[in-house]
């Protein structure tokens, strides 16, 4: 590509198609305008490009740049006319829904799950030889599901082939049909023991659209997810997207392959982590699902909690978390039956917004639980490889772990990014910061940010074309920094000092004691930095080790600096009245709700 000065990018979501314009000004890429329109995959339009053109038209009106000539995108850019490239992501029609299979559930089953999730799929079920289901139950389940695609793995290269062939026989017996259209065969990717490939071909070749990829677990000690993920993306375009209304036209319009929305977000997270050399956790809480992404020491993981969301799945949050878990975040009492009805009314009318303060507090309480549960699920999957015989040294003698440790090390987390309506559109930014801190409970020093207008999908595809352009927009326009959370670790007696602090703020130096169970809040703007010194008590670790002084620079944001002395995990007063006082006190410190 010769020149990349103007980019138009769209994300075709289930309900809305969002377009953004990115322009290079003074050698720096910036996001300048955005437009949106309802997605038009459903009747009466049944053509996704209709919504794309409408969203682009809104960008045209706002920017004054002519992008469309009828239904054609003008390229390349020339003055105030045209763009250099058009790129897109898509999650319309429920995104990419996959079923995965592996021989051992905790080994190849998990690897297959990580592979599909990382490619941006929703995993409908994980089938394994040892999943406890009878063969006929497995076959019935495969038949019921109607996934977009199946990923079959199992066995290390050179190992036994019978188990993975047996799984293939189950798939063949189920003769599964794809979700869209009955006129084509279901795509199946085989990424297991390469010695079994001929037998798999014989079993599934004539019944499915079979693609053989490299083994995702060639050795017990190694995972090789990249090649199979690429195959998933290719098949997503060729088979799944091509069946959806209008997508053939959309594929022809774009200058880079269309990516599943979460796959693109994951790519952007990895790019940002790599360029800044930081550990990142990101979350996108939507109406139906919550996606969690993490990059720790370069290892990327993504999970999607398919039934944790703020509208369509809001009732499920209540069902999974339990009423008490939601109620513990509310400083007032609500009748259980009344709360249940309110939540169901939100489920059946997902587009309504909280008018009353009390309703906003209920929604934010539910969001805390949805985020917390999604993160629990993420931690369970973002683990080291299981079944690996690690070489043990003398220093490991007392370490009884057997592989599969969580890769999520909260103390090593540098940046926590939130996105999705309830986080991005909270009336006060400090509410977003409070929800992220309460749900994820970061430890040590963690910077918080929110994706301003959910631009990460667009930037993810852009990063596949021009990494520098994507990173520039990500840092300058995509993220709104909320500030920094400083949470010393260790349980103390409620009210007793856990650390002494000194903060050198632009407005003047401040010092004092952070007590166990307390929150402290200091204003510090996004472009400001402060020097912080913490002298923790003997049993408390501020990041430099128990009882050791820590001095570091911390950055500000819309919610400033939050010193969190509440311990990990957060401890709530058992008594309902005391707990309400506790919540009110935290809320007052943060000033996160209006006083009356």
């Amino acid at each position, binding site marked *: 590509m010769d020149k990349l000065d103007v980019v138009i990018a769209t994300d075709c979501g289930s309900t809305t198609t969002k377009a953004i314009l990115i322009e290079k000004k003074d050698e720096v890429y910036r996001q300048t305008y955005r437009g*949106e329109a309802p997605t038009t995959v459903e009747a009466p339009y049944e053509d996704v490009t209709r919504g794309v053109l409408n969203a682009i038209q*809104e960008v045209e009106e706002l920017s004054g740049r002519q992008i469309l000539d009828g239904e054609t995108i003008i390229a390349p850019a020339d003055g105030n006319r045209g763009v250099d490239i058009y790129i897109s992501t898509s999650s319309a029609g*429920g995104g990419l829904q996959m079923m995965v299979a592996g021989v051992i559930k905790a080994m190849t089953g998990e690897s297959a799950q990580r592979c599909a999730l990382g490619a941006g799929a929703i995993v409908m079920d994980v089938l394994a030889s040892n999943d406890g289901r009878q063969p006929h139950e497995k076959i019935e389940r495969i038949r019921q599901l109607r996934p977009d695609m199946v990923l079959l793995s199992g066995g290390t290269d050179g190992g036994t*082939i019978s188990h993975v062939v047996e799984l293939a026989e189950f798939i063949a017996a189920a*003769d599964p049909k794809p979700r869209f259209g*009955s006129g084509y065969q279901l795509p199946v990717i085989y990424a297991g023991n390469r010695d079994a490939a001929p037998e798999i071909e014989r079993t599934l070749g004539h019944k499915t659209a079979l693609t053989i990829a490299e083994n995702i677990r060639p050795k017990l000690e190694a995972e090789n997810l990249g090649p199979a993920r690429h195959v998933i993306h290719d098949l997503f375009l060729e088979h799944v997207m091509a069946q959806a209304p209008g997508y053939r036209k959309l594929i022809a319009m774009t200058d880079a392959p269309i990516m599943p929305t979460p796959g693109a977000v994951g790519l952007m997270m990895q790019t940002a982590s790599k360029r800044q050399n930081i550990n990142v956790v990101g979350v996108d809480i939507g109406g139906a699902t919550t996606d969690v992404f993490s990059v720790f020491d370069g290892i990327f993981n993504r999970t999607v909690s398919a039934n944790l969301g703020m509208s369509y799945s809001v009732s499920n949050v209540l069902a999974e978390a339990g009423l008490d878990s939601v109620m513990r975040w509310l400083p007032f009492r609500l009748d259980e039956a009344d709360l*249940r009805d309110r939540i169901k009314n939100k489920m059946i009318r997902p587009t309504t*917004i*909280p008018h009353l*303060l009390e309703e906003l507090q209920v929604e934010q309480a539910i969001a805390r639980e949805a985020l917390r549960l999604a993160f629990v699920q993420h931690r369970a999957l973002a683990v080291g490889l299981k079944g690996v015989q690690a070489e043990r040294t003398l220093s490991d003698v007392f370490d009884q772990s057997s592989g599969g440790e969580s890769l999520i090390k909260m103390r090593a987390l540098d940046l926590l990014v939130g996105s999705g309506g309830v986080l991005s559109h909270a009336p006060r930014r400090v509410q977003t910061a409070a929800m992220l801190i309460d749900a994820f409970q970061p430890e040590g020093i963690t910077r918080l940010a929110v994706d301003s207008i959910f631009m990460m999908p667009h930037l993810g595809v852009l990063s596949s074309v021009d990494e520098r352009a994507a990173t520039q927009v990500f840092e300058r326009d995509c993220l709104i920094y909320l500030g920094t959370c400083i949470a010393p670790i260790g349980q103390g007696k409620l009210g007793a000092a856990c650390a002494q602090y000194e903060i050198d703020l632009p407005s003047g130096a401040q010092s004092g004691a952070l007590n166990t169970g307390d929150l402290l809040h200091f204003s510090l703007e996004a472009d400001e930095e402060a020097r912080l010194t913490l002298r923790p008590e003997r049993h408390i670790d501020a990041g430099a080790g128990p009882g050791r002084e820590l001095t570091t620079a911390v950055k500000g944001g819309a919610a400033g600096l939050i010193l969190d002395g509440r311990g990990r995990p957060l401890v709530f007063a058992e008594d309902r009245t005391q707990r309400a006082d506790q919540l009110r006190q935290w809320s007052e410190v943060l000033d996160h709700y209006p006083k009356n």
Partner: protein
Amino acid sequence: MAHAYTPGLRVTRQARLQRQRQLPLKGEVAVAQGDKVTRDQVVARTDLPGNVTTLNLVNILSCTPEELPNYMLKREGDAVEVGEPIAETRPFIKWFKTTVKAPISGTLENISKITGQVLFRAPPRPVQVMAYIDGSVVNVLPNEGVIVETTGVFVQGIFGVGGETWGPLHVISSGPDEILSADQLDAECAGKIVVGGNLLTREVIDKARETGAVGIIGGGIRDADLRDLLGYDLGVAITGTEDIGLSVIVTEGFGPIAMARKTFDILRENNGKETSISGATQIRAGVLRPEIIIPEADAAHRAEEGDQLGLVEGAHLRAIRAPHFGRVGKVAALPPELQMVESETRVRVLEVEFENGDRAIVPRANVELIEE
């Protein structure tokens, strides 16, 4: 955002409706284009592949998978009867012979030389698709199904459980505010679709089921009652396949809430008429709402399905979130600028005049148009 989303449920005396009646797999269409069909008439049928049963013979016969074909008495594709021998060993001493019998009647589908697994498939299961509404076939989807068209009353509910059913409408409540009590339902409800005005309590739904009613329609339902009715907490709003003995449709929402007067009036006017209903609700992409259809063969057609008046002054609406949840009124003013509401959310709003003359400012996203 260009405009606030104001979803509308259709409540109309005259609509032209088309319903696609499709098989889960390809099969045979039983009617032709132009045919008049009735709600309980079969329009398409097919056979679903039978269930699969597996048997790992290498463990039973103590042989290797490669040796397995030598022991088989039946070949792939052969029909088998339950209990019929399908494989046996041939030891020197007959007394040690092991015979394996077919676990089901059907077809022997596959013998694996890699895993030793033998697959049996039960005979196909027939499925039929009914017309669901009285009308005429306007389009045939070859081997897949038909599109049936009708004209008549069309009312969309907000939430439902249970699938498609039909029967005469049986309006019991005297008005949209009335909460039915169980003793108002009797043997006369059998085979009918019962209509109440306000809340449908658990007792009333149970009584409707006992009396043999095929469906029940009301203004609201309590979530706690729904949980008891289903036996589980409904997490995601995808319904329609519940097997609870009848279909339930609520027109307004969860909690005690009166049915919109217009909806109630339309149902009362059609008391006794043959009605088709479906409780199927799906609120994710491709919104599906429960529906009440009363076909009227010679209805003078005025409004096409999909006609919308839009959010204009004077338009009838219903507030769909606290603090005015469930109240009905009309648009009094549409101020264009964003306003901050109590939660400090800045939103586009409208001024509503409720039926009792009270006025209030509400977010546009928190109202629902009651469409003609």
